[in-house]
């Protein structure tokens, strides 16, 4: 639906101040435009190079996430949340799971909290790397982008080793996480961070004191703290304007209250401050992960082979199917730790013991009647997780700002309503304000600093 832009219609002569008659140019930026990643459309009215008016049109990536969520059970929503902010899907996973847990009133083991913090922070780094890298690329510094994507690759390898996937992770569950961290994760993490730090230092050297970059970024896309708050902007964008609001500090969730980290704050609220805030946040995130790995309560990564009888999971399942229970009573299944059905002791450290929400381990399902019943009660049609009637809002600090999930339950096994508060929606509503008065060339860095993610904006 093309909305009419106020001011003078296309082609009509603008107020001619001099002898020459001038006309504004109507420029349609997007939806197919190299800088409009995530697909949006901006209809800009240009006076020479200056943007005098702009109309932002969103909605090209609407997939009906919220409606879709009402049709599946509570755990079934998790794969959909992967596709909200697809640059940091783990944070969405965590946010949604914690919202439903709040609704159910259950708590998860400490180790699970720490794991969630670790994966969230790794995701935050990947998100910021993408954002800063893409902004730099749009200013012509293509090399920085590839450096940052290289660093992101190391981190995605970490994510892959934990979740088994790079993007569609579906790692969290209501009441826990899918699987524990793999063996040797701390070591792997240290190496990846070493590489990431190197890349960040390189990029910092290429950008932070680069006169062209600083000139392009500072003073453009400015927003004051008051304006940012009134638009409902959160996250790095708000912090760059000088407001130290961070969900992790102001209403800590998971184990953030036990971890030490700083919240970087800007002063001018322009693109350059946003860049600096993001660069610093990546360092802080690495600090958080390192602390979390150190403080995390130990989990039994693997049962001592001497105390039990190792049995391949497939064989155990076969034995159980033919009722040969005594043979597998003392056995534990040998599976990939990232797959469901890992050893029983491993589960208690990463998932709640609540039978209402979490599937039992496979050896329980196949090994005893309680496990089987718990399994069926959760998976059979008409059963499943049934939170009490009520509604809950839970927010986590997404990479772009406050990522909130508002979940309403009518007591059934599917959510009555799931509403997402996507952080970049608020920022996008302020985009016209940010770009009007700037030049056409400033549109790209400003839009880049918003880090608009179509998946979460349009849902």
């Amino acid at each position: 639906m093309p909305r009419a832009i106020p001011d003078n219609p296309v082609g009509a002569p603008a107020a001619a101040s001099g002898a020459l008659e001038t006309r504004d140019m109507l420029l349609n930026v997007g939806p197919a435009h190299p800088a409009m990643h995530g697909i949006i459309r901006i209809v800009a009215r240009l006076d020479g190079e200056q943007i005098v008016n702009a109309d932002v049109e969103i909605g090209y990536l609407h997939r009906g996430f919220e409606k879709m969520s009402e049709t599946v059970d509570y755990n079934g929503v998790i794969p959909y949340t992967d596709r909200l902010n697809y640059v940091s899907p783990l944070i969405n996973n965590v946010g949604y799971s914690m919202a439903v847990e709040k609704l159910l009133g259950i708590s998860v083991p400490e180790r699970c909290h720490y794991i969630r913090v670790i994966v969230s922070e790794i995701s935050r780094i990947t998100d910021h790397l993408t954002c800063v890298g893409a902004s730099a690329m749009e200013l012509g510094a293509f090399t920085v982008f590839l450096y940052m994507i290289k660093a992101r690759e190391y981190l995605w390898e970490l994510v892959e080793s934990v979740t088994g996937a790079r993007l569609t992770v579906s790692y969290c569950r209501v009441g826990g996480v899918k699987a524990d961290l793999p063996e040797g994760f701390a070591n792997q993490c240290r190496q990846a961070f070493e590489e990431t730090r190197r890349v960040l230092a390189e990029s910092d050297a290429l950008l932070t004191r680069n006169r062209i970059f600083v000139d392009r970024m500072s003073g453009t896309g400015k927003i004051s703290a008051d304006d940012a708050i009134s638009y409902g902007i959160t996250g790095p964008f708000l912090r760059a304007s000088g407001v130290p609001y961070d969900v992790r500090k102001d209403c800590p969730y998971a184990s953030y209250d036990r971890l030490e980290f700083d919240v970087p704050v800007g002063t001018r609220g322009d693109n350059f401050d946003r860049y600096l805030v993001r660069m610093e946040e990546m360092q802080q995130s690495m600090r958080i992960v390192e602390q979390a790995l150190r403080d995390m309560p130990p989990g039994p990564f693997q049962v001592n082979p001497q105390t039990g009888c190792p049995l391949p999971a497939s064989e155990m399942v076969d034995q159980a199917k033919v009722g040969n229970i005594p043979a597998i009573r003392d056995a534990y299944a040998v599976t990939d730790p990232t797959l469901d059905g890992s050893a029983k002791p491993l589960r208690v450290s990463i998932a709640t013991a609540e039978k209402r929400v979490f599937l039992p381990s496979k050896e329980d399902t196949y090994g005893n009647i309680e496990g089987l019943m718990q399994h069926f009660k959760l998976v059979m049609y008409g059963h499943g997780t049934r939170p009490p009637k009520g509604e809950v809002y839970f927010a986590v600090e997404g990479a772009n700002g406050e990522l909130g999930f508002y979940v309403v339950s009518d007591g059934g096994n599917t959510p009555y309503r799931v509403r997402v508060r996507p952080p970049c929606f608020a920022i996008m509503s302020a985009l016209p304000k940010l770009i009007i008065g700037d030049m056409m060339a400033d549109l790209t860095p400003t839009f880049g600093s918003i880090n608009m993610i179509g998946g979460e904006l349009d849902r």
Partner: protein
Amino acid sequence: MIDLAVKVVLALFVFFGVLNLAALHTWLERKQSAVIQDRVGANRASILGWRLMGLFHPLADSIKMFTKEDIVPAGADRILHTLAPVFSVFFALVTFAAIPFGDRFLLGGRVIELQVAKINVALLYIFAMLSLEVYGVILAGFASRNNYALLGGLRATAQMISYEIALGIAVVGVIMIYGTMDLQELVRGQGQNLAGWIPLWGIVVQPVAFVVFLTAALAETKRIPFDLPEGESEIIGYFVEYSGMKFGMFFLADFLETILVACLATTLFFGGWQVPYLTSSGFQFPWGATLPVSQPAYVLLGVVSFSIKVVIFCVLFMQLRWTLPRFRYDQLMRLGWLGLFPIAVVNVLVTASALAFLKR
């Protein structure tokens, strides 16, 4: 008749040499950016399994460009739309005629200057051609009937005109020192040595002019950090409505311009075909040693020296292109008019006073 034949041979040599260098430039761009960015770079194109580090990619590119559909947007001016890329390439190519790439040599009693056209105001000719080349870009912007292309054309016009002035004034200092506008003579003038050791190249006597010239010349090539007319992520560029070989010609013109600027920088500031301490009779080192060199070898060394210098400049430009971000329009204008222009003017004044003082 023989004179004509010699000229044709020289022209063909320069023409194909430059075109090949431009093709190699695409390869260089791919490989060098790959090295900078921790990548392998283009290496897929092969003939009978031979890949030669991706050297066949320029060939594959040209085949692709020639076989693609040529689209002229509805409402565009057909003639100007077609003429624009031709303008760009033509004027970029003819400029090379005035560049001397070697000393004169004797062949069958004939003196042959290694220069396609011996013009006594070669610098003026080059600047004239450079100015005309802008028309290709402007026409592309205006004839495409596309707002993005129009913006690109506008930016290109402003940028080229502003920087050409700084470029021209920067060169004035060099002209004053060597007292000639004939590039061949200018290069010969750079053959002396300062205090016996330092070659009296343009950069030694005019370092400020060199910096101004290099900056302005980079702006002329329309490449990052001065790629505003293209500004891919902002306005896509003046060639947004071009496809196939017409687009390829703009691309080619860009590479030709880069090479041209490298040639000019070499000729004006790095002694052109001069080899340090090499005179037509052989090497005469400042520590007294001499090494006789035959006449053909002397000329050949000159051509090699010229080519090496040009390639070094190309590599330098490439390095800048893959390191720096892009300027904004107003910042570019400020740099041109408030930075380079005054510096160039002051440089001319200082040079003039110094020359007047020394002559007295």
